[in-house]
Structure formats: structure tokens, C-alpha cells
């Protein structure tokens, strides 16, 4: 503070710019040491000196001055705006990066979704095939069980179908009034071409026409088992069963002479 005392009377004159060079340099050297008290005093003295401006009467400059200034300022503002627009991309890079990432994610997601759809479709197809296979097996099982029940039930009626050809083996049928007819044969020669064997029910009614039933073809060893779950006629009204050879798909009425015939007792 002792050092500051020698400058205490100079602050206003310094702010005014009235100090001679030696005094001014001395004060400035002191301020350069970082004396906060003197620096603050100088700043306040500058404010005090600035108040002297009010001694000058206010005066309006010409309109031309404002016109020139505004023209310059507008031109520089426009130029600054153009430079700013030129240096700044319309869409910032980080936004482009975001869009690119989103695009890649969308493509990846779309491919993933498509693969997922394929997997689901394949799985569904496999499930449907397995279900179909199961249903087929169940149907086969149901058929086999029904055939077994017809073949083993004492209530079933045995029907032997004799062939018109003495060389040809005999067919056997069992008819259960509620479960249907099971027709079996072994070593049966296959019909020629695509022709099939067709079962007929011969009614007891005099002059009644043969009633068509299912068709069959023996396997490679000449075996077959034919189940007729719902015979087209009641056993009591049927006189005999007959087998003819018919075109593929069967016929509404026999087109050939029966190769096997067996009476229903």
C-alpha cells in the first residue's frame, strides 16, 4: 500500500490522459505488477472522466451518416450470412452419419425379417407335412384297427368269393353289419394296364342292378386288403358280392363279366 500512495493522486489525470510521460510510465509500470486496488481505482476514474462527454451538447449527425452505416452494415451482414451458409453444410455430417447408420440398420433388419419369414414358412411347411403324415398314419391306424375288428369280430359274416377261373385264387370277405366289409386276397394277378378291380353289391331285389363300390389294384406280390367302411347297401338286402375288371376310376355299372362272386348268407 505504501507504494500505491505515490500514485493515489494520479488516477483521474491518468484516465484523462493528462499525465506527462514520466508519471504515466511510472503508474503503468505499477499497474503492470498486478495491483488490483490501483487497477480498480483507474477503471473507476475512467468512468468519471467519461462523464465529461456530457459537457458537449448533443447533436444529431446527418441522415446520410446513418444511411451509409446501414448500407455497410447490411452488406457485411449479408456477406457473413453467405459465408456462414457456405462453410456450414446444409445437413451436418453427424446427421448424415445417423442417416447412413439408420439405412444400414434398416437393410439389415429387412434382410433379417425376410430370413425370419423364410424360416417361419419352412417350419410351417414342415409342421404341416408332419401333421399330414400323422393324420395319414392315424387314418391308416384307424383303418387297420377297423379291419382287425371286422376280421376278428365273431359277428362278422364270412363271404368266400370264388373265381370263374379255376386257376385263380379265391378271395375272402368279412362283412360286419356296423363296421363294414373287409375284402382280402393273395397272389391275385394284376389287371392289365391301368385297369382296376371293382367291388359290386348284388341286391336281393329281383332285377336289381349291381351297386358299385370301391376299386382296388393288388400290390406287386398280388396282395390287397380293401375296407369298405360304409357299404352302399345293407347286408340283409344284399344277395352277393362280385368283382369285375373295370377301367381306371371304376364304372357306374359292370362292363365285364365278374371274375369273383360270393353269396352273402
Amino acid at each position, binding site marked *: 500500500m505504501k507504494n500505491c500512495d505515490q500514485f493515489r493522486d494520479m488516477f483521474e*489525470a491518468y484516465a484523462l490522459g493528462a499525465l506527462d510521460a514520466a508519471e504515466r510510465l511510472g503508474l503503468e509500470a505499477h499497474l503492470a505488477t498486478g495491483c488490483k486496488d490501483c487497477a480498480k481505482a483507474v477503471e473507476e476514474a475512467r468512468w468519471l472522466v467519461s462523464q*465529461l*462527454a*456530457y459537457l458537449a451538447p448533443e*447533436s444529431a*449527425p446527418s441522415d446520410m451518416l446513418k444511411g451509409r452505416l446501414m448500407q455497410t452494415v447490411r452488406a*457485411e451482414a449479408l456477406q457473413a450470412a453467405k459465408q456462414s451458409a457456405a462453410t456450414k453444410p446444409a445437413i451436418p455430417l453427424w446427421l448424415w452419419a445417423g442417416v447412413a447408420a439408420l439405412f444400414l440398420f434398416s437393410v439389415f433388419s429387412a434382410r433379417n425379417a425376410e430370413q425370419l419369414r423364410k424360416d417361419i414358412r419352412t417350419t410351417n411347411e414342415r409342421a404341416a407335412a408332419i401333421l399330414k403324415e400323422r393324420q395319414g398314419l392315424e387314418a391308416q391306424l384307424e383303418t387297420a384297427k377297423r379291419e382287425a375288428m371286422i376280421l376278428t369280430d365273431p359277428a362278422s359274416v364270412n363271404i368266400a368269393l370264388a373265381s370263374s377261373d379255376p386257376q385263380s385264387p379265391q378271395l375272402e370277405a368279412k362283412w360286419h353289419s356296423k363296421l363294414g366289409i373287409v375284402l382280402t386276397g393273395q397272389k391275385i394277378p394284376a389287371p392289365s394296364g391301368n385297369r382296376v378291380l371293382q367291388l359290386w353289391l348284388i341286391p336281393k331285389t329281383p332285377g336289381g342292378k349291381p351297386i358299385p363300390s370301391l376299386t382296388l389294384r393288388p400290390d406287386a406280390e398280388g396282395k390287397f386288403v380293401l375296407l369298405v367302411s360304409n357299404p352302399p347297401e345293407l347286408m340283409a338286402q344284399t344277395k352277393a358280392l362280385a368283382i369285375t375288371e373295370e377301367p381306371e376310376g371304376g364304372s357306374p355299372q359292370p362292363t365285364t363279366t365278374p371274375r369273383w362272386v360270393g353269396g352273402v348268407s
Partner: protein
Amino acid sequence: MFLAALLPTANHEVSPDAMLVHCLLQKDVSAFEQLYDRHSRIVYGLLLRILQQAGTAEEVAQDVFLQLWRNAAQYDESRGPFVPWLLTLARNRALDTLRLKSERQRRREDQTEEMPPVVAVPQYEKELDEKRRAEKVRALMGSLNAQQKKAIELAYFEGLSHTEIAAALKEPLGTVKSWIRNGLLRLKEGLQATT
């Protein structure tokens, strides 16, 4: 700088001038026009008083306002009020102009972008409108004796040093120093008494 312009400081509230100067940073032409309309009369009056020529005063006024427009970032609202800062800038530019001898030298010097030093508001300062402030300052200065007032005006408006003023008034250097210091202290006390 942004927060400094918008948040009240310990000594004073954020002024409309500080807000407008902040807008200059965004090259806001409207803010510039408002600042010009608010302060061009006091600035031009000061320049005319120092330079005594309307053409030169307008030329310097143009430089002062363009310097404000181009270097608004150099004004720090947290370090002091705007108007004294602008007036100090204008006075410095005018005195520089006054001291130069040739037109070519003056133009070259005008291109410098030196900004005024920090101007701090003392604690006794209160917000006064421009008209009341001018009346107060003139009344206080009017109460000084003629020689004392003349010495201060020579220093402020013509940029003369103590020695130059003593020579101009043909008075002892110590007397001139006392006049100036005592006159300014009286002005300071007068402004303090206003509050």
C-alpha cells in the same frame, strides 16, 4: 460472453444496451440500428466538440460505429457499462484524429482497431437517464471556477497534458494539476451526492 450478457452482475442489472451488443455478435442489423439511434447524438456531439468540423466528426463517428459493429465481442458487459465504454472509444478516436497532421496519416491510423480500456462503474453510480445525467454533469462543472473548468476541458476535449495545459493557460504546473484533480473529485462528490 453470452451468459455474461444476460445474467445480472454483482453491481448492476443487465442493460438493454448489453442485450443489443450481444445481438451484434449474431450480425443483427436491427440491433445495430437501435444502438445507433440510442447513442449517435451523444457520440456525435462529443466528436463535434473535439474535432470542431462536422465532416470530420461524421467520418470518425462512422468509424466508431463500424468498429462497434465489427468488434462487438471486445465489449465485455461484466467489466463495465456500455455508454461510458462507447464514449471513451469515441474520444480516443477523436483525439487520435486531432493529433495527426496529414489526411493520409489520419486514414492509416483510423484503420487501427484499438479498443478502449475497461471502464468500471463506481459504487456511488446509479442509473440516470441521459438527459438527467447531462444536466447533472453540466451543473457540477458549471460550479467550478472558469480556469479549473477550462483546464479540464483542455485535457478532455483537446487531449492536452498537464504541461501543455499549464503552457496554454500560462499557469504553474502544480496549479494546473490541482485544478484538474480537485475539479474531478468535486464532480465525483457531486455524482455521489446525487445518490
